[in-house]
């Protein structure tokens, strides 16, 4: 095996292997990886069409040189019926753990379920949301042939993490997971990432609360970049876009770091990337809003995947962030943030739109007292 890999290093370079076991893989080129798979498999293996049952049997019998009787016997022995653990005529309830289980997994599950039953809260919000999301993403069949996902395409699972806050250590890493096909560009990935820092409205509006402009920072500051394996992929779709990576590259050059290069985000498809699976990379936008991006999985498409091309990038996991409520009513999500406010219990303080206006303005809309008001977008805006 070792000798073989030495002989043709070219072809094995793109067979991903662990760099660190169970943590991340070595870098590989996504498209070459796909070709390696396609080279190894028969077209029928990755096609979304099913082979005919009888053809399969006939092929197998011929291949192995077994007679028809043996084949029939083999089919009977290997059928699903031979694995059935309950009488044929009664269907067991698969939603409950069977009584007095002997498998240790079931013993554990029973213990957990008994514990959960003893709790007051029986419903898990996250479970509900996850099921809802699953319903939305399941089996999207394309309407036209054009929208159909091509066979032999790669699907990448990409986790985008929220900017880390180290004030409070938590084992939960809030993130969203996206499914993307190899033909997507990085710019499409960028557009699929929702972050509240894109929605902020800048400026102080205590004098004119109704005049808060519609310009959100997404439209004002359009520069962004991804960083994968020593290459900065810059967004250059709009004339306003600045090259944010140059500063870093020059800084790194001055300090004897390995050289970094640049590329264009919208021209780079995901299959063109060279990356490590499971390794954290960077997405940076709005100047300093930094997200970790981890590609957790690369694989060929399967017939059970959502085959409608239009539905990609497909959201498969979303973290529900708890929202910050108005300091007055504790019902609605905060919309305004005030500072230097004599009327507020704290500095800064959050208000919903209604409470903010009732407290800070009279009937004619005149400002009461001195304060500074800023528009506020909650972190849970995308829930």
């Amino acid at each position, binding site marked *: 095996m070792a000798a073989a890999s030495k002989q043709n290093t070219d072809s094995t370079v793109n067979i991903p292997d662990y760099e660190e076991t169970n943590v991340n893989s070595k870098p590989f080129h996504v498209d070459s990886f796909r070709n390696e798979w396609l080279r190894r498999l028969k077209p029928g293996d990755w096609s979304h069409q099913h082979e005919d049952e009888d053809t*399969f049997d006939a092929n197998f019998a011929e291949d192995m040189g077994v007679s028809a009787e043996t084949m029939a016997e083999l089919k009977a022995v290997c059928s699903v019926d031979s694995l059935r653990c309950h009488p044929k005529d009664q269907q067991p309830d698969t939603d409950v753990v069977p009584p007095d289980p*002997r498998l240790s*997994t079931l013993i554990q599950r029973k213990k957990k379920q008994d514990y959960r039953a003893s709790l007051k809260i029986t419903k898990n919000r996250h479970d509900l949301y996850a099921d809802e999301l*699953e319903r939305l993403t399941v089996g999207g069949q394309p309407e036209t042939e054009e929208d159909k996902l091509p066979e032999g395409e790669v699907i990448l699972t990409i986790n985008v993490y929220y900017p880390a806050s180290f004030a409070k250590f938590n084992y939960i890493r809030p993130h969203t997971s996206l499914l993307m096909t190899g033909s997507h560009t990085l710019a499409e990935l960028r557009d699929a990432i929702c972050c509240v820092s894109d929605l902020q409205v800048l400026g102080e509006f205590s004098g004119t609360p109704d005049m808060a402009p519609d310009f959100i920072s997404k439209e004002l500051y359009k520069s962004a970049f991804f960083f994968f394996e020593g290459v900065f992929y810059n967004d250059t779709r709009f004339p306003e876009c600045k090259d944010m990576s140059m500063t870093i590259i020059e800084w790194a050059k001055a300090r004897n770091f390995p050289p970094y290069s640049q590329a264009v985000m919208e021209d780079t498809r995901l299959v063109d990337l060279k990356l490590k699976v*499971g390794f954290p990379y960077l997405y940076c936008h709005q100047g300093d809003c930094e997200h970790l991006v981890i590609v957790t999985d690369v694989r060929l498409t399967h017939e059970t995947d959502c085959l409608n091309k239009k539905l990609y990038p497909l959201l498969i996991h979303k973290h529900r962030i708890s929202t910050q409520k108005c300091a007055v009513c504790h019902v609605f999500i905060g919309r305004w943030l005030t500072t230097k406010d004599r009327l507020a219990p704290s500095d800064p303080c959050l208000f919903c739109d209604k409470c903010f206006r009732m407290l800070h303005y009279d009937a004619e809309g005149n400002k009461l007292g001195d304060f500074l008001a800023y528009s506020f977008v909650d972190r849970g805006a995308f829930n």
Partner: protein
Amino acid sequence: MENYREQVKADCEQILGRFQEKDSVRFQVFATIWREMNFSHIFYGAVKREGRAFVRLILDTAYGYFLPPFSFQIRVGGLYLLYSLYQCQTNARRKQIRVALKDWDVVKKFEKDAVDAQHVDAVYILRRLMFLKAFHFTAMPTLLDYQKRRNVVKSTFCENFMDRSSHLPEIINTELLEELSNVHTMYTELKSSVFPPPQQTDSSVDLIHRDMVPQLLSTVKDFYKWRQRKDTRTAEAKDSGEGTSSGQESSKRARLIASIKSKAYGEAAEASKSRRHRQVEVNFSSSEAGPSFKPVYTRINRPSLKARTKDNVHIISKVWKDATGTTNVSRLTSLELDRAEIKSLRENSK
């Protein structure tokens, strides 16, 4: 799902262990064990999100047994396990088995071996899985998200499942020995050219032991001999049956106690007492015969003091209660024997 990992592994190892005992690679045999263990029930009670995550976990675990370094029989068992799990999962939408690119050649080799050995059912199951489109062709066998485990549990795959014969030749072969002796001779030559002759005898500057190569060789040979002897012995023991070889009262008694204990403490006792006893015997005789293998120092992860205390107190008090119970009743009849029994029981429990 993390907290099911141990249990799932234990269950998989149990079913594969029973399959191994049967000494067969037939699917029929596997299916019988499956039904006996009611293994389909493993999916029951896990619904919706939990169910999906659980199927992922158990398929990933079972996939591990389908690959080397396990013996061919276990790998066939692993394949059957994958097939059965895939077929029996209760989710509306089936989860696929993830097969990594780097493992594909191994899978193909396995298929070829099975074809050559005319294991028709194994080949049929594998092709059937392909036909059912039960595989995801992936880059890595599991989803990776850069989670570094804090207390890394070393994957303690069941030793019995390993293909043992192949390990040693991989590490020590003739090439390595030649290389070693070459380096050694070259080094001695160099050294003798540098130092004046009288200093050459100074052993403190030796690179390796003077006769390391022959020593290594003889050790390996000894190990092989010992292994062979052990294998034939266990084979003999199997032939003669469990009953006859343990004719002595003591071993019978030990087994009895072991069985009681295993009943009392669930699955904590792994190998039956008689086995352990016999193994020790073999080790002893082999260490007399020559090869001196010092056990490699391995770090044992002990549970916390609290856990240990809880365990110990629990066991002792239980035994103590039983023991006092019997003594109170039977003190009038036979005092001596009972005392001895209690003592042995207590020792065993420790």
